[in-house]
């Protein structure tokens, strides 16, 4: 291959994906997840982690099959990320120290209620004065609790990943809400394009489902209350969609400059050809009614990839199944894709795995790359009552074969976060 073949349309190093790992409510590992996803299986189930009687939402897509030493969001998020990273590095054929930077999308952690109750139990009768935190402080002054400290620091997940996998430098832990996974990939791509590194590890994990996190989203009316049956709750782009299903998962992508990947004989799984972002200043939870920021984000990703909308063969939608997101996403997509919109298949993985929040952008990037490499479009399940105002080809209910060379993947989040990725097949 000539040197030029390793550069993109702007003369920057092309960024290849050489390893992937994924965990979702559908299972562990790329193979099992892809098999379940393409057969239209749902991972959504009743909540068992905590009692849900009396709650308006009693379903979720939690990951409950990976052992953790203590039931908290840090341990869970770390364990998921560790598993997907082991898988991704094995696929990339990288052993020993990784030797490149780590970009980790991790959930903003709140202390677990069990820990608060335990602290409360340690309060002696004479210490029961003032509010709970004054009492906790009295307890902690007498006896430190380093385990608790580590369980509530935002830096503790990346710390352990860095130690486990020998990444280089100070890891970046980030949150751009539901766009976090895409941002972790974008940071890795940028680092390689900057020439700072030949490889980067992008990881996005979320094991933060708890009673409090569920109730907080519930209070914002963001969650589906279609509890029965659980697997039918997430129904993106339908007329009766009523919210997203809270879920967990993780994904790891090994990113390398194409040149470095080829020169070490690595198998190239795909190219991250473009990243786009644009913040929305309209509202804390709602998108601009015009869709302008999402439109700008999609266009920025296409421009970064040097592609026109005509060259996109499939769209991996954000598709949360909330009334607002799906409407706004259609508005943005149809604005960018114009007359060609009806011909471009658009499906939502969230119809099956729910919304993996912090992890979503990376989990869905893995599935986007698999779409390219396998020639299979995963379906949007539960598409029984189409919303006539969203006339999309959502790959309804059943997978479809299609040759796709470039995919657009959307991620939009609270706080005006918008990030889009364009992924492509390895250049011939």
């Amino acid at each position, binding site marked *: 291959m000539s040197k030029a073949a390793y550069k993109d349309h702007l003369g920057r190093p092309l960024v290849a994906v050489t390893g992937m790992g994924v965990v979702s409510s559908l299972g562990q590992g790329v193979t099992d997840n892809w098999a379940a996803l393409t057969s239209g299986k749902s991972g959504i189930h009743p909540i068992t982690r*905590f*009692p*849900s009687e*009396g*709650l308006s939402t009693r379903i979720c897509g939690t990951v409950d099959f990976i052992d953790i030493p203590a039931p908290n969001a840090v341990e869970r998020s770390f364990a998921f990320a560790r598993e997907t990273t082991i898988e991704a590095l094995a696929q990339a054929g990288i052993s020993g120290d990784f030797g490149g930077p780590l970009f980790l999308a*991790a959930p*903003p*952690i*709140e202390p677990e*209620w069990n820990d*608060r*109750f335990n602290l*409360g139990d340690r309060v002696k009768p004479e210490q029961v004065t003032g*509010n*709970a*935190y004054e009492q906790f*402080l009295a307890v*902690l*002054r007498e006896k430190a*609790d380093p385990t*608790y*400290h580590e369980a*509530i*620091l*935002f*830096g503790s997940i*990346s*710390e352990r990943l860095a*130690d486990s996998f020998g990444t280089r*430098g*100070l*890891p*970046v*832990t*980030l*949150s*751009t809400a539901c766009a976090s996974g895409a*941002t972790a990939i974008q*940071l890795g791509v*940028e680092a390689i*394009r*900057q*020439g*700072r590194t030949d490889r980067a590890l992008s990881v996005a994990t979320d094991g933060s489902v708890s*009673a409090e996190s569920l*109730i907080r989203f*519930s*209070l*914002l009316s963001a969650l589906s209350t279609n509890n029965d049956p659980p697997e039918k709750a997430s129904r993106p782009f339908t007329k009766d969609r009523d919210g997203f299903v809270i879920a967990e998962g993780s994904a790891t992508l090994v990113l390398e400059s194409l040149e470095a990947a080829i020169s070490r004989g690595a198998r190239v799984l795909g190219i991250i050809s473009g990243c786009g972002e*644009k*913040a*929305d*200043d309209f509202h*804390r*939870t709602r998108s601009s009614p015009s869709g302008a*920021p999402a439109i700008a984000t999609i266009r920025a990703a296409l421009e970064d990839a040097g592609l026109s909308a005509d060259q996109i063969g499939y769209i991996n939608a954000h598709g949360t199944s909330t009334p607002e997101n799906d409407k706004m996403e259609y508005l943005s997509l149809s604005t960018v894709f114009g007359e060609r919109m009806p011909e471009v298949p658009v499906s939502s993985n969230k119809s099956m795995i729910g919304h993996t929040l912090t992890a979503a952008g990376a989990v869905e990037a893995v599935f986007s790359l698999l779409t390219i490499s396998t020639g299979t479009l995963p379906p949007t399940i539960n598409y029984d009552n189409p919303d006539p105002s969203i006339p999309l080809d959502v790959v309804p209910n059943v997978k479809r074969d299609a040759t796709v060379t470039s995919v657009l993947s959307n991620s939009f989040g*609270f*706080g*005006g*976060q918008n990030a889009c990725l364009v992924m492509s097949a390895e250049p011939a």
Partner: protein
Amino acid sequence: MTDTRHQVVVTGIGLVTSLGVGRQAHREQLMTGGTPQKVTDSERFAPYTVYPLPEIDWSTQIPRRGDQRQMENWQRLGVYAAGLALDDAGLKEDAEACASMDMIVSAGGGERDIAVDSLIVEESRKRNDREQLLNEKLTTELRPTLFLAQLSNLLAGNISIVHKVTGSSRTLMGEEGAGISAIETGHARIAAGQSTHCLVGGAFVSERLDMLMVMEAVQGLGKDPEAAFWNSDGTANGMNLGTAGAFLVLESLEHAQARGAHIYARLDAVLGDRGSREGERMEQRLAGLADETGASDDGDTVVFSGASGYPDLSARERAFLKSRFPSAPVRTVGALFGHSIEAHFPTAVALACMALDDDAPISPFAAGEDAPASTAANAAIVTSVGHFRGEGIARLTRMS
């Protein structure tokens, strides 16, 4: 760092600390030859000492009441300081510049509802079905909007809403390291031509029981209000949290010059690292960071140390600085401003920029310990040794 295609300069400073509001308030206390007096509160959270929020009129940077109500003080402080930085850079009213401006925020989490948490803990003492109790109370007592005031990325989200900074929005987390990474990332993107102008910074509020609890879980907080930051044996006296909001506008030199912006300083290099602190490992890493950032005490260099106040850790940092930069006076940021976790590194970089923009030397921060400087600084080194993990160094140079 191999990438030197674009020089990165600082053109806007937004700083709020216990010492006051805005760059000018800090200049008057630090750059006029006097002895700055720290402002602390040892009563409200006794036995802890905090460096409190100064008197501040939120409406000067957050004009809409509705916006103020959607936030608690952590987000308000960050949005306020970001507004100051935009004003200072002359970009506040430049809608086009803000709409294309990148943003990187170093963030922790927002305030918890202490009353609701206390109510639940209180009730839990009387009941065995604690999980059921939790569901009942959270469903009925939590304010829906509080979630948004707590979410880490909503500081950035509020900056977009209030100041219309919408080029991009990224929130980095992870205590002190978040502040290092935020500036490192902003610098790297501009140096490589991926960005032309970027708002970067963070905020931290010390007057929070929930935050004191996090730090006291490892008994890290100083409890003697009379104690100086440094002991005579070179150790420190424990961490005292400090409220700070610190934002910078970073630009490529070309972008700044093209619009005739005032340049405070050039940000030459920023790097972070982490790892074991056993033996000499931390000192070796700091030496590596100094090598890679080109930090040296040649000429009139001043060092801004982000020492947390942890007794032994800070002693090690101090010894390293003394051996590596023997002729450079040190300014102990934590002694005058307290430790502001995610905002600590941005605060120190903001102070360094002010020193490099002034004709006068910067006053010592830790009286009797920080060496006086006889001349204005021409170069600055900013260090961070996180209270638990992560180290970073930035190097800056005078431009005017």
